[in-house]
C-alpha cells in the first residue's frame, strides 16, 4: 500500500461540495502538486490532510494507519502556510524550536536541531531576529525550517511562493525542489500557478470544482489532457467548440477546421490545439484551417499570431522568433493557413470525454521538429 492514501476524501459546506471524493495514492519521497484555479478545493484538501478541516467523508491513511480522526497536533505534518503564520512574538530560533518544544527532547538535541535547520535554510545568522525584521523570502525560509524541524511525515506547502516577488519565485521554487529531493520529503504542495507546478512536481493533480480532473506527470498532462479544462489550464491550449462531421469541425461562424487525426462519432465536440504546435504558412490547399492575421506580436523568444477564422473564432499560434524552427512573420490582415500534426490536437466529445484518434499515430515529442 502507498505511503499516504486519500480515499474518497470529501468536504461539504452546506449545500456545496468543496471537495468531491478525492482519491490519491502518494509514495514516500514524492512531490505532489495540487493545481487548480481558486475555489477548486485544493486548499481544503490540503487542510483536511493537516487536520484543520474535518472531512465529511473518506479516509486519510498514512503508513497504514487511519489518521483522519486525529487532531492536528497528533498528525506530524509540517505545514508551510501561504502567509507563513510565523509567531510574531518569537525570534526566528524560537519559531523553529516551537514544534520541538512540544516533543520530548533534551535541550541539547533541540538546540542542535534548530541550528541544523537554520543552516539548512541559510538563516543561522538571523536566529535572534523577530519575524517582522525579516524580508519576505527570509520569512518563508523560517516557515520551511519550522515545518521541517519536527521531521514531519509529510510536508504540506500552501501556495508557498505566492507572497514572494516575481524574480525570487523561480529561485525559491528550485531551492524547495532540491531540498525536497535531497531529503526525500514526501511533499504535497498547493498552487494555482501552472508554471510553478510544472517546475516542482513529480506528479500533478489538476482539480476543478472540488474534483480531480487528471493525475499524472507533466508530459501526461501536456500531451494527453483528459479534459478540455486540463488542456487549457496546462499550457493554454486553443479551445474551439463546434460540430464534428466527416473529419471536420464546423465552428461557430461557419468556418471549418480539418482535423489532423481521424475520430469516430459525429456531433458536438471540442478541439484543443497547443499554440506552439501550430505552423503558419501562406495560403495553401492542404491545411487544418485558414484565417486572417488579426494581431502579430513579437515577444522576445516567441512570436505570437492571433488568427481569426471568422469574426467569432480566433486561434493563437506561437513559434520561436529565431533558430532553426523560427516562424515566418505575417502582417496584420494577411491571409494564412494553419497546420498542426495529429499528435498535437485533442478532441473531446459533448460530455468532455477524450475521443481517441483512430489512426493512432505515435504521440511522441520528436514529431514536433518534423513539422517545423
Amino acid at each position: 500500500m502507498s505511503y499516504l492514501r486519500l480515499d474518497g476524501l470529501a468536504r461539504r459546506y452546506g449545500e456545496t461540495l468543496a471537495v468531491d471524493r478525492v482519491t490519491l495514492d502518494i509514495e514516500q519521497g514524492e512531490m505532489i502538486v495540487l493545481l487548480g484555479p481558486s475555489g477548486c478545493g485544493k486548499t481544503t484538501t490540503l487542510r483536511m490532510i493537516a487536520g484543520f478541516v474535518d472531512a465529511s467523508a473518506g479516509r486519510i491513511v498514512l503508513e497504514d494507519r487511519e489518521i483522519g480522526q486525529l487532531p492536528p497536533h497528533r498528525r506530524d505534518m509540517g505545514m508551510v502556510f501561504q502567509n507563513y503564520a510565523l509567531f510574531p512574538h518569537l525570534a526566528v530560533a524560537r519559531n523553529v524550536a516551537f514544534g520541538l518544544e512540544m516533543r520530548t527532547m533534551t535541550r541539547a538535541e533541540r538546540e542542535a536541531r534548530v541550528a541544523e535547520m537554520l543552516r539548512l535554510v541559510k538563516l543561522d545568522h538571523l536566529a535572534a531576529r523577530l519575524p517582522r525584521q525579516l524580508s519576505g523570502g527570509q520569512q518563508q525560509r523560517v516557515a520551511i525550517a519550522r515545518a521541517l524541524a519536527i521531521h514531519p511525515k509529510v510536508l504540506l506547502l500552501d501556495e508557498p511562493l505566492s507572497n514572494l516577488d516575481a524574480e525570487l519565485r523561480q529561485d525559491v521554487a528550485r531551492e524547495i525542489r532540491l531540498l525536497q529531493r535531497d531529503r526525500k520529503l514526501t511533499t504535497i504542495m498547493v498552487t494555482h500557478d501552472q508554471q510553478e507546478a510544472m517546475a516542482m512536481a513529480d506528479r500533478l493533480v489538476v482539480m476543478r470544482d472540488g474534483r480531480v480532473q487528471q493525475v499524472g506527470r507533466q508530459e501526461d498532462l501536456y500531451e494527453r489532457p483528459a479534459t478540455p479544462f486540463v488542456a487549457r489550464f496546462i499550457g493554454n491550449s486553443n479551445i474551439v467548440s463546434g460540430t464534428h462531421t466527416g473529419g471536420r469541425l464546423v465552428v461557430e461562424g461557419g468556418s471549418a477546421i480539418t482535423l489532423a487525426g481521424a475520430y469516430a462519432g459525429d456531433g458536438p465536440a471540442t478541439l484543443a490545439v497547443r499554440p506552439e504546435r501550430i505552423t503558419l504558412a501562406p495560403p495553401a490547399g492542404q491545411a487544418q484551417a485558414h484565417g486572417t492575421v488579426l494581431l502579430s506580436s513579437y515577444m522576445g523568444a516567441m512570436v505570437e499570431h492571433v488568427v481569426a477564422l471568422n469574426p467569432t473564432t480566433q486561434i493563437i499560434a506561437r513559434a520561436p522568433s529565431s533558430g532553426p524552427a523560427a516562424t515566418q512573420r505575417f502582417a496584420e490582415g494577411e491571409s494564412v493557413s494553419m497546420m498542426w500534426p495529429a499528435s498535437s490536437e485533442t478532441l473531446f466529445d459533448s460530455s468532455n470525454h477524450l475521443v481517441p484518434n483512430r489512426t493512432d499515430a505515435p504521440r511522441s515529442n520528436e514529431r514536433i521538429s518534423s513539422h517545423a
Partner: protein
Amino acid sequence: MSAADIYRPSLGERAGEGAMTLLLVLSCAAIFLPLILTFYLSAFDEQMIVFPPRGYTLAWYSQIQAKFGAAIWTSLRIALAAVALSLLVGIPAGIGLQRYRFRGRDALSTFLLSPLTVPGIAIGLAIYVLAIWVEENTGVTLAGSLRLLILAHVLICMPWVVRLCLAGLSNHERTTEEAAASLGANPLMVIWRVTLPAMRPGIIAGALFAFIISFENLEINLFLVAPGMNTLSVAVLQYLGYHIDPLVAAVAVVQIVVVGAALMLLDRFVRIGQAIR
C-alpha cells in the same frame, strides 16, 4: 487498525474542556439570566415578586401606557431630536477627519470622541452647574428645559456618529471622488453624489446607535430633568426605588424588544462588532 489509533483526549485535556464549558455557561448566565428573568416576571399575575407566582397574565403590558407613557414620549422626543442634531454635526466631522490630513488631526479626533470617556455623572453635574450659571448671569432659563437635555444628549451621541461615519469611510476609495471631480462635479456635488452615498451604512448605523445611547441614558438625565418631566430611564429608577413588580419588568421588556429590533435593523448595515470597538 488497532484501538490505539483512535484519538482519546488525556485526563488533563478533558478537565480543561470541562472548566471551559463551566466558564462559558457562567458567562452566558451572567449576561442573559437577568434578561430572561425580566421577561418571565413581566407575565406574573402578582402584585409583587412572589416566586413561584399563582398565575400568569399579560395585563401588565396594558398598564405601561398609563404609568410610563409620558416618560416614554419624553425620552423618544429627546432621542429623535438628539439623533437629528448629532447627525447634522457628526457627519461633516466624520468627513472632515477622513478627508483632511493636518497636524493635530489625531488629537482632534480624540477630542471629538472624548465625551465617551468622561463619566456620565460628571457630564451631568457639569452641564447642570453651567446651565445655572448662565441663568444667573443672563436670565435665560436652561436648567430643566427640554432644549438643554437635547443638547447634552447631542454631546454623547455625536461621538458615535463620528466614529461610525469614520468606520464607514475606512473602505472608501478617495479615487472615486477624484473620478467624480474629473468628470466635472464641483466639491459639494462630489460630497453629495459620491461621499455621502458611500457613507450611507455608517450614517444609518450612527443614527441608530445615537438613538439607543440617548434613549437609554440615565446619569445625565438624573441631573437635567425638571420636576414633573421624566425620561423613561429616570422614571424606571425612581419606580424601582419603591417597588419591584411585574409592571416595571414589562417596561424593561419593551425596552429590550425595541433595542433588539433596532440592532437587528442595524446589523443589516454594518458589522456591529467591528463598530463598537
